[in-house]
Every structure is written in structure tokens, then in C-alpha cells.
């Protein structure tokens, strides 16, 4: 049956409607998971709160395993879904910048908006900085436009690169994620003994 748009069940005009619905759901889940608090978010780097890791790992493994079942039941044709193209070097550099920004600012782009939504000042300041950053990037884009598209690998998946079948990758990630959940719980317990309670 799926994906709905490539298979012609609905037209591409529904893109924005779906985007808004998904955006609302995403924002709600982020806020409900406590992602509107920069203390919660940055906690993963200091070892007192691993909620970010848990939420994203849970989302990832549930989606991963779920999609494999969807494919099996014929609800979604995995060979037709969009796969983001990979540009190795810009992605590594971008990831480092993003990580640094995350530690320093205490938000990632999506969570800063949820923080604004519940009226947090730090989220507002972060978002202003975000737009200044976007402006600087846009204006200076010609300087590094070559680098921006370097290391193009097309649209490979982990299965293509490693040659391991999808169920094994899904199982490996699930196992790692579940192990990490339990380990981080222990780390949290230990670290929280020495830190004072904080407000969300």
C-alpha cells in the first residue's frame, strides 16, 4: 500500500498537511519527554540525565523494527521510501558543529521551538541565534559550496554499505539501545547522588 504519495493514493499536495500534522505530533512528544528544558537536554553530556538518548534510541528502534514489519505485511514498500543522500565530510563537520551548539546552547533546533512554545526565554534567545547562524551560512555559502557537496555517496543504506541484512542491523541496534538504556540508568543513579536536584 504505502508509501502513499509515490503509489498515488494521495497527491503530493498533501505534503504540507502531513508535515503540519507530523510537526504537531513531534513537538508534542518532544515537550512531553521534557525536551523543552535545556538542563534535561544537556544532561546527557554531563551524565545526570540521559532522557535524550533514551527517547531518540527508542524512536529509532521502534521505527526500525516497525518498518520491517510494515514491509512484511505489505503496508509500506521499503524499496520506495526516500533515503537522504550521504555527503560524508560535510556531514561529519556539520555533526560536530551541531554537537558543539547542543552543548553550548542547550537546545537542538527542534527543541528550541518547543521551549518557546512553553514560554522559555533561553529557547527564544537560542532561536534568534539560530536564525543569525542561518543568515551567516546563507551569505557565506559560496565560500564552501564545493565542500558542501563533497564526499557524495548517493543514497546508501547501512545494508548497502555493510552487506548485512536489515533484520540483523535492526537487532544489533535494538540490542545496543536496550543495553545503553540499562547502563545509562546506572550511570544516572551514581551521578545524581553527587548533584543537587534541578528545576526543569
Amino acid at each position, binding site marked *: 500500500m504505502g508509501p502513499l504519495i509515490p503509489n498515488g493514493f494521495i497527491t503530493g499536495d498533501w505534503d504540507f498537511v502531513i508535515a503540519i500534522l507530523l510537526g504537531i505530533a513531534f513537538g508534542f512528544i518532544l515537550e512531553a519527554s521534557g525536551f523543552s528544558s535545556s538542563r534535561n537536554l544537556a544532561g546527557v553530556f554531563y551524565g545526570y540525565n540521559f532522557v535524550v538518548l533514551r527517547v531518540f534510541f527508542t524512536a529509532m*528502534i*521502534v521505527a526500525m*523494527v516497525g518498518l*520491517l*514489519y510494515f*514491509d*512484511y505485511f505489505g503496508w509500506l514498500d521499503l524499496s520506495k521510501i526516500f533515503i537522504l543522500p550521504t555527503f560524508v565530510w560535510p556531514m561529519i563537520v556539520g555533526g560536530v558543529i551541531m554537537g558543539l551548539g547542543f552543548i553550548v546552547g542547550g537546545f537542538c533546533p527542534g527543541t528550541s521551538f518547543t521551549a518557546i512554545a512553553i514560554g522559555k526565554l533561553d529557547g527564544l534567545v537560542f532561536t534568534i541565534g539560530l536564525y543569525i547562524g542561518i543568515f551567516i551560512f546563507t551569505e557565506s555559502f559560496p565560500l564552501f559550496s564545493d565542500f558542501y557537496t563533497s564526499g557524495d555517496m548517493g543514497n546508501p543504506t547501512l545494508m548497502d554499505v555493510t552487506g548485512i541484512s*536489515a*533484520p*540483523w542491523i*535492526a*537487532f544489533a541496534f*535494538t*540490542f545496543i539501545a*536496550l543495553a545503553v*538504556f*540499562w547502563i545509562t*540508568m546506572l550511570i544516572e543513579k551514581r551521578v545524581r547522588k553527587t548533584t543537587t536536584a534541578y528545576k526543569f
Partner: protein
Amino acid sequence: MNRNYFFLTALMLLLAIGTMFLSKSEQQKQIEPDKLLWEIIQPTRYVSTDEVAKLIIQNDPSIELIDVRTPKEFAEFSLPNAINIPLDSIVTTSSLEYFGIPGMNVIFFSNDAIQADQGWVMTKRLGFDATYVMKGGLNRWIETIIQPTEPKETAPQTEFDIYQFRKGAQIYFTGAKVETTTNAKKNKVVIKRRKKTVTASGGC
């Protein structure tokens, strides 16, 4: 520690392990239904018996004749160099090796075109290109190549040309004897001799 975490961990692990037992191999990959429908209505997927005869006579190395009838029928009569793949065993790994060979044109035939069409649809759904169906099947083959009928005298010249070709093909495939094409009675050649002129003899 919350007991629910244990249940959730176990559930997630079970689901992840479960994905390994989802076998996709039972389902063959297929082309899109609308693409199949588009291909089905193309008249170019048919080849006539004359074209097939021509290709066989020319010893064209790029054609692959597939007889989709039963082995018994195949043993009784078939086209030269044809391969017998009964309809029910087309979608087996050993049979599928015959399709999708680069540069090869597969021509399906059966007694009529129905079974051949079914074979064609099966391979087309699996995404094989360059497959054709012999229009009319072996029945038409008999009518046109093995026992061609002479066109009416008023028929256009092209039909006579086709007839000539079919007669030639008939000779090629059956070893029939060459028939003389004109039935006109032999005109007796009358030799006219000039009467000897009587020369004057004697005289004077």
C-alpha cells in the same frame, strides 16, 4: 526500578528477533500493475507466424522459442529448436534462467495464443523485457506455414507475395515438393514446315 522496564525491554527484544523470521523470499518482485496493463495493450508484443518462420529460416541466433505446452504435446510436434517450459513450471529458478538474457528475444507459443499469453504475463510481471507471443500459436502456424491457402485471383499482389513466402517456408519446414505454379496446358509446338517449292523440272 520500574518493573515495566523489564517487560518493555523483553518485548522490544522479542520484536527485533521476530524480524529475522520475516521471510520476504516467498513474494517475487513484481512490476507495477499500471505498467503491466500498459505493456499488455501494446500490439508490438505479438509476432506473426510469418515473422517467426523468417527468423527460424534465417537462423537468427537472438531468438529463443519457448513452448509452454505440456511435454507430451511438445514431443509430438513443436517448432525447430524450441525449448519446452510447461506453463506451471515457468516461475521456477531453473526456468527463469532462460529469461532476461541480454540480446535474446523470447517468443512464447502454444496451440493457441492463450497459454502463451499467460506465460508472457508471468514473465512480464517478474520484470523481464524482450518477451513476445507468437500470434495465433501453432494452430495459426499450421494454417499459414504448413498448409498455406492460395489467395483468390482478385487478391492484391502483397498477398501473393506472402503466399509465395509461405510456400517457400512450407518447403523448408516440411520438405514438400516444389509444385509448378502455372497450370496452363502446354502448347504443342507445331512445327510448320515450308512446303517444298516445286521447282520446274525439265523443260526446254
